[in-house]
């Protein structure tokens, strides 16, 4: 009978112990406390009891803010998708010819995408509030930049992964590089582009709620004000409205994905 587990060597054993210690240390640093969780139960129940039933007093104003939130998300996503495509082409390995000029452009495009992706959208919102002032435009720009980071990476990767045969066929027929990219690579990567874009819209809808907290427009600011004034019934209304909006966008996204991917030919 073989052993159920292979006995680890000293080095492996030390590594396992170090890993467990690292996880425990992280939980301590995160202030994780079961007692706080248990003692917080009554406060949570109190919040829920004070938040129910939701207040419908400001429903028209909140609906307007919710629509603005979605408008920010949609506009930001569209701007982001449009701008991410050329950036992704420049950042995709093997798509552009490797020359003295194209190599630094490739590196710059990848770095730019990495910068847009790694800096959180809330930070972009703070920067754009400084740049263009309070309101939905700052939020839209923040979402656009975040979308460029998200879509740029996935668009580039999907173009790198497409089958090379059609590109080779068009190159053999004398087609130029741009023609080859738009005729062979982009259509092959289109299902992935559509999926990524719809995920980006869902992500942007969730983000646009939070961006309002720093003054970048939308319903987020309404939520912050309601919580600051302990108007929990209004806060509950806003939370439920956000839930419905995000759910609708996700459902529509799923529906659109399946419809478009079945799609007709060009």
């Amino acid at each position: 009978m073989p052993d159920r587990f292979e006995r680890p060597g000293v080095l492996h054993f030390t590594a396992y112990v170090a890993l467990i210690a690292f996880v425990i240390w992280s939980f301590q640093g995160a202030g994780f406390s079961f007692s706080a969780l248990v003692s917080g139960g009554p406060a949570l129940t109190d919040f829920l009891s004070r938040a129910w039933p939701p207040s419908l007093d400001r429903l028209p104003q909140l609906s307007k803010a919710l629509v603005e939130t979605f408008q920010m998300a949609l506009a930001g996503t569209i701007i982001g998708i449009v701008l991410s495509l050329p950036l992704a082409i420049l950042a995709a390995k093997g798509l552009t010819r490797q020359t003295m000029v194209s190599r630094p452009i490739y590196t710059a495009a990848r770095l730019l995408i990495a910068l847009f992706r790694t800096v959180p959208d809330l930070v972009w919102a703070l920067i754009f509030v400084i740049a263009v002032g309070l309101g939905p435009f700052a939020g839209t720009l923040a979402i656009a930049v975040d979308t460029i980071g998200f879509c740029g990476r996935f668009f580039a990767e999907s173009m790198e992964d497409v089958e090379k045969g059609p590109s080779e066929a068009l190159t053999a027929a004398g087609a130029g590089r741009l023609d080859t990219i738009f005729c062979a690579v982009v259509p092959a990567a289109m299902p992935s582009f559509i999926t990524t874009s719809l995920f980006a819209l869902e992500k942007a809808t969730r983000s646009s709620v939070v961006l309002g907290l720093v003054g970048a427009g939308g319903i987020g600011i309404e939520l912050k004000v309601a919580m600051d004034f302990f108007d929990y019934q209004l806060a509950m209304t806003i939370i439920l409205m956000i839930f419905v909006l995000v759910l609708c966008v996700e459902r529509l996204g799923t529906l659109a994905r399946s419809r478009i991917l079945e799609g007709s030919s060009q």
Partner: protein
Amino acid sequence: MAQALLQPAGAIAPAVPTLQPATGSPCDLKVEGLCKSFGREKNVLSGVSFSVGRREAVALIGSNGAGKSTALRCALRLIEPEAGSVLLFGEDISAARQYQLRRVRAEVGFVFQKHNLVPRVSALTNVIHGNLGRNGGLRGWSQLLASAGLRERAMACLERVGLADHAMKRADQLSGGQSQRVAIARALMQQPRMIVADEPVASLDPVAGQEVMDLFHQLTREEGITLLFTSHNVQQALDYSDRILAIRQGEVVLDEDSRVLSAADLGHHYG
């Protein structure tokens, strides 16, 4: 001529004039001393030399890994050879720049074993793509954007391969034989002086394969297009070529008129 047959009345003439053969050059393609190796794999091609005459049908045979496909790709510089020279329609393309290469490649229809069609677009759009070498840009990207003349020419090419009624079908919904015929229509859209076909029937059933080879035969005999194709089928190579080249371990070991060869003569090149 193919150009005449495929040019319907009122069609727009290609903006780039077709290359004129160099005076006194009897060959459409002449390669000399092609060498190529991939990484640690030693010498896939070791000094391959051959020529293909105007309006000639030449079969290139050899076992798997003999270097047939690499030779074809090096001849069009789809793969860069390490040494050797290539004369295409009398032009030395060995050191040609990209724009010069594109102009010459536009004259050669390359048909691949796996047809290499763009999958999510229509057969018609795929055929229109054949014109990109002569006229690039938005108009050639899709049948939705193409001019009436371009669409007409593409439809004529599809009709030529018997698939006009499949024009709007998506390429990934066509059978293997149909896909290969669309790939040939795409090559015809180039108004080629030469077709290079890399094992064009290897992934097809015998009936579809026969149809495709008959189509090549028509194009060479009736329309005067030069043909260079690779094949594993010795009998097919004998039936559809004027001359047979055999390649073994990266070297051309046979260059003979098909009429004086038999299947038995060629069998040992697959050893």
